[in-house]
């Protein structure tokens, strides 16, 4: 019966501790790990700046499906793949600099819309199991991506630049250098403070997306998505096409993830053709959850808190591991464990509370029914 005390706890302090248990645990871990790692404050700030500019966009792409009640969208990987296909083409055509990035976005947009629509349709068929289905869908599409890029490109899809092809003359190489478009967005507006480059343009793009999301929530469509997220049946009664709204929210998320992946890769400067997208979903979702989001509620502050906490952990854990038992490998494994563990913990906590709440509601309904029955019985007795 201990479990019920958790959702029943009305003490705001206790509630806060439970709701934000993940970020709190993370803050404590980091507080121990930073001194152990011996990394300087300046280094951490510079790295975090880069990572905020690099990772925030794709995590913001997760917010809209959460609003629609579809949980964490593990199928953002599909969007990432679309973005990578765009990057493959601009590398092939050797279009450099900012025009290259814009063209990559342009090429991959229709593909992302298509994949998002498909993903939404699949998830609609798996209501209540969206997350695990989205996750498996990402794996499935990874196989199809491999078939297209590893066997189709240079074969069926014409690729003229042989330097990105495998020696056998079809199929894209494992790694593509994006040197020509490297950090063009980050360095578009050159600004240095104390020797640290501030990626102004990237932050502007991210800020624009934040404003868009805030605005979008208030539009009619945004309201519809939110009411679908709260209750499918009520939304249906209101005359909202639930299926279509859900597909739309996944499509928007996929397109945003596609842009997010392009922003991410232009910062990194190289693309692992077959691996870059694989962990996108896991890391984005773990970061969002670390920021205090839950499966049913995620906000813009969650994104930024998440990036900062999660990536500080990423930065310090290998060196902390080395300081602790003399092996950097330990820290590597530790951060993988933390990424998966955070997701497991948050999902379990959410599912558990959902169940307890349902149980409480049922109990309340039963009690109400009993009271009603009693009152009708006594009323009946008075007649005679």
């Amino acid at each position, binding site marked *: 019966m201990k479990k019920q005390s958790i959702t029943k706890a009305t003490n705001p302090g206790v509630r806060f501790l439970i709701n934000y248990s993940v970020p709190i645990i993370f803050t404590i871990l980091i507080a121990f790990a930073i001194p152990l790692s011996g990394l300087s404050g300046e280094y951490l700030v510079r790295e975090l700046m880069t990572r905020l500019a690099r990772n925030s966009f794709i995590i913001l792409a997760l917010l809209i499906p959460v609003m629609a009640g579809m949980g964490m969208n593990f199928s953002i990987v599909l969007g990432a793949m679309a973005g990578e296909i765009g990057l493959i083409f601009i590398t092939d055509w050797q279009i450099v600099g900012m025009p290259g990035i814009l063209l990559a976005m342009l090429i991959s947009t229709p593909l992302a819309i298509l994949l998002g629509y498909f993903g939404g349709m699949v998830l609609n068929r798996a209501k209540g*199991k969206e997350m695990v289905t989205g996750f498996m869908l990402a794996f499935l599409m990874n196989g199809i991506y491999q078939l297209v890029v590893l066997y189709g490109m240079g074969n069926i899809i014409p690729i003229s630049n042989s330097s990105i092809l495998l020696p056998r003359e079809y199929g894209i190489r494992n790694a593509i250098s994006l040197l020509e478009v490297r950090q063009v967005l980050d360095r578009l507006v050159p600004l240095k403070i104390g020797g640290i480059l501030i990626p102004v343009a990237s932050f502007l793009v991210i800020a624009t997306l934040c404003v868009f999301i805030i605005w979008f929530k208030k539009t009619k469509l945004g309201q519809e998505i939110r009411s679908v997220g709260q209750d499918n049946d009520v939304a249906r009664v209101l005359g909202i096409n639930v299926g279509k709204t859900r597909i739309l929210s996944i499509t928007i998320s996929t397109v945003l993830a596609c842009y997010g992946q392009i922003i991410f890769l232009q910062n990194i400067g190289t693309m692992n053709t077959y691996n870059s997208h694989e962990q996108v979903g896991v890391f984005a979702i773990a970061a969002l959850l670390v920021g205090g989001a839950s499966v049913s509620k995620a906000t813009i502050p969650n994104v930024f808190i998440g990036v900062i906490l999660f990536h500080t952990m990423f930065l310090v854990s290998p060196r902390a591991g080395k300081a602790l038992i003399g092996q950097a490998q330990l820290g590597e494994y530790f951060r*993988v464990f933390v990424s998966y563990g955070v997701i497991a913990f948050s999902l379990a906590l959410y599912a558990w509370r959902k169940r307890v709440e349902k149980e409480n509601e049922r109990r309340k309904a039963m009690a109400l029914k009993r009271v009603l029955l009693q009152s009708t019985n006594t009323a009946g007795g008075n007649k005679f």
Partner: protein
Amino acid sequence: MKEKIKNIIENVGLPRVIIFFFLVLLFILAPVVGIRLDASINDVIVRFGMNGILVLSLVPMVKSGCGLNFGLQLGIIAGLLGAVTSIELEVTGFAGFFTAIGIAILVAVVLGFLYGTLLNKIKGDEMVVATYVGFSSVSFMCIMWLILPFKSPNMIWPFGGTGLRTTISNQGYWFHVLTDFLQIKIGNHIAFPTGTILFFALLVFLVWIFFRTKTGTAIVAVGSNPEYAKSCGVNVDKIRIISVMLSTIIAAIGIIVYQESFGFVQLYMAPLYMAFPAIAALLLGGASVGKASIINVIIGVFLFQGILTMTPSVINNIIKSDMSESIRIVVSNGMIVYALTRTIRVRS
């Protein structure tokens, strides 16, 4: 006639029909491109013995309504601990094999109990949580493999390194003890692994018997209608925990049999994705999220391992490039996505 075919496809499921005909096509093409059919079929049987028990381990949880066991890795971890400990203790031959299984079962009982207790708290969301419980426990064990105090020079990194190696050979311990047991050799190409198949048959028989006992029937009752089972006085939570423990134990045995045949104990990230092929095989055999039987296991493992064995050799010979890995990814994950989207439609 057309209606009839349509009905059959509807009942069996289109992906299964496609995969079945794909496999038939591969077998027809094999002799054409110069691949020995008898050797191929023998390979399929060997792989059947390797993977059968892992797939069988999924059945109890499906039957009790816990869904597909995406947390299969927990059982695998128990098996790995058993295997590594038996090598550390230097027990060889059948004794080593059964020592490994014995220790693995002990660990699996504990892990299964904890895992089952967790799954009881999150009824309805078992699969997604189980996936990440599986992933996080694999990565947690990565840390453990580094720091657990194993000493055997055959397992730790040479030259004063600490921690276990990523792959540990079980040759000289219990490599092929089952495979070589009563092995039937015909010519150069056929070596029927009698022992492995017999061991699989034994486990299948035990599971079959178990589902005819009182507890076994209770598991089926809980899976098909928990409310009804509850009203009959069945302790639903307890029965679910039993089914999860059973699944975990069989998975632990399954991975040891796999390693026995394969020759290596693979640690660290190797078990990470091992749940998916097993699940795909079960689904391919006709199971769904809420229903699975032993027949599904046998058909599924044959079809799935058939595809895995035949695609590399046949396709490579035809188009001179190895597409098998991508095809495997599409087939196994496609099957899982299909099953996940399918059940909901039936229910609604």
